[in-house]
């Protein structure tokens, strides 16, 4: 029987939301094909999440446990995934489209002789091949693409599918992994500005995103306060990452991250296509901008033409009030 394999990333001890989304999609495809839905986890303690993966439909869980996976380094990830693919013999491997995955996808495809459909918004089996819709031209259009072959690797944009529980029993198979440090022709010297432990932007249900309209420390504080009262993750445009006001991990868009929260609030962001490419899939988009002609209003569900320095303080107070009443 063939296998549809979902690659799962562990964050703060749990599978990331984007991972559960691809696992759910893998389960749907497997059910449609009469195939097995399997998951693979690389982590210092991979078996710890096996139960959670079974809850989301994994009938088989391949675990590779090694301390080296505490931080991302591409060579050991490649070696481990190659070993799991050799063992599981999947016809499709689906990945969440994270930076860690983007780092290994091309090399893994060459190593395993696979065809790749990167960063897709949807994926399905059709007439014996794998078809996917991919945003192209800075997400102005969708390209319908098709890959054939014994093995197809697919990475899926965050928020393309819903994570749905489909409880089952999972057989856990620990893949023996030994890594020869001598073959590691790279050293990870350090990780700086790590946001691990905070709400991950791609996983967040509410995002407050700041653009160049946020001009100073006072503006930045307003954005942080709004995010705080909403329990939101903070995103940003490229302009304010460039100016150093927000960290690069906050950048949303073609170069940055793809987000698809229930609620995205863009403040002082013009809505350049390269930014919109990363957030147009949000369920509700609110834009606050002084310029009524700003392109962000073309994708906004609710547009507020106004000065963020006037609107945000009132908005923060109002939200505090309603939260206090609700509590």
């Amino acid at each position, binding site marked *: 029987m063939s296998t549809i394999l979902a690659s799962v990333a562990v964050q703060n001890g749990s599978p990331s939301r984007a991972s559960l989304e691809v696992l759910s999609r893998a389960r749907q495809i497997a059910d449609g094909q009469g195939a097995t839905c399997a998951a693979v986890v690389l982590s210092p303690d991979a078996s710890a999440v096996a139960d959670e993966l079974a809850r989301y439909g994994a009938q088989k869980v391949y675990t590779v446990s090694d301390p080296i996976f505490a931080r991302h380094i591409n060579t050991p990830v490649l070696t481990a995934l190659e070993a799991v693919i050799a063992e599981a013999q999947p016809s499709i491997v689906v990945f969440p489209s994270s930076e860690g995955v983007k780092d290994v996808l091309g090399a893994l495809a060459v190593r395993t002789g696979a065809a790749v459909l990167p960063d897709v918004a949807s994926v399905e089996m059709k007439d014996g091949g794998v078809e996917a819709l991919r945003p192209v031209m800075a997400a102005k*259009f*969708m*390209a319908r693409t098709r890959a054939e072959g014994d093995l197809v690797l697919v990475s899926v944009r965050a928020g393309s599918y819903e994570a749905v529980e489909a409880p089952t029993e999972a057989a856990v198979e620990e893949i023996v992994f030994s890594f020869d440090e001598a073959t590691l*022709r790279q050293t990870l010297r350090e990780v700086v500005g790590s946001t*691990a432990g905070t709400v991950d932007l791609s996983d967040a249900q509410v995002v407050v995103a700041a653009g160049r309209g946020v001009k100073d420390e006072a503006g930045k504080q307003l954005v942080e306060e709004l995010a705080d009262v909403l329990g939101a993750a903070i995103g940003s445009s490229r302009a304010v990452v460039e100016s150093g006001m927000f960290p690069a991990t906050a950048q949303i868009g073609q170069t940055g991250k793809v987000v698809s929260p229930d609620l995205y609030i863009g403040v002082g962001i013009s809505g350049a296509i390269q930014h919109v490419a990363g957030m147009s899939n949000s369920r509700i988009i609110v834009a606050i901008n002084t310029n009524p002609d700003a392109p962000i209003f073309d994708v906004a569900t609710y547009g*507020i033409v106004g000065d963020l320095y006037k609107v945000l303080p009132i908005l923060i107070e109002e*939200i505090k009030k309603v939260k206090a009443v609700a509590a």
Partner: protein
Amino acid sequence: MKFCVCIKQVPDVTAPIQIRAGELSMDAGRVVLNAYDASAVEEALVLTADNDGEVDVVLIGPERATETIRKALAMGADRGAHLVVPEDTELDSAAVSQLLAGHFKDYSYDVILTGKQAQDTDAGLAGGMLAERLGLPYATNAVGLAIEGDQLVVTRQGDTGQEIIVLPTPCLVTCSNDMNNPRIPSLKGVMGAKKKPVDSAPVAEIPEASVRVLGYEPLHTREPGRFIEGEPAEQVAELVNVLELS
């Protein structure tokens, strides 16, 4: 250090584009050097300006893509290689990496740079594929590069922070446009570029693409939105109401 930057000519994604009968249709004149590749060229130029070194560029594309090689030469690259394919040849990242791997068999470089992705397709695969084919250590999504002796120090933008990675040479790095702002060629640069060597040769055999594009479709259109009018206090009250934050 000797650098080679792989560059692609891409349609200008900010130009008007329509879909006609499942194909993308745009003003063919609006083509540009892929922005991510421009950052890679810029970084190579900066790194070789202080240290000794050379910067070559290589491009696979139709005859008219020579202008994109000239653009890189005008920025300051030393020499270009053009692997010429017929107009409208479809090459996916796998095919590109295969052709580039063939090209690099005949040359020796300390560092090969690519863009992190092509701006038109956002595939982001060719760099990693090429590194694997050449058996080179690599890093992707670099936002900073520095030379340390005969090693390269890469600042990579990862999911949760910036990873500082040390690579021996030869190696391959894929570059983000967050790395720098590419220079605009000076008039002198543009004139000088005309005299720089470009080796151009037709591609003997076009590799078959493993991924085919069946056609293009518009995005799902979003429900039309609306402006919330009034004074800030009124706008906020209405927003809190429609978002059902209470």
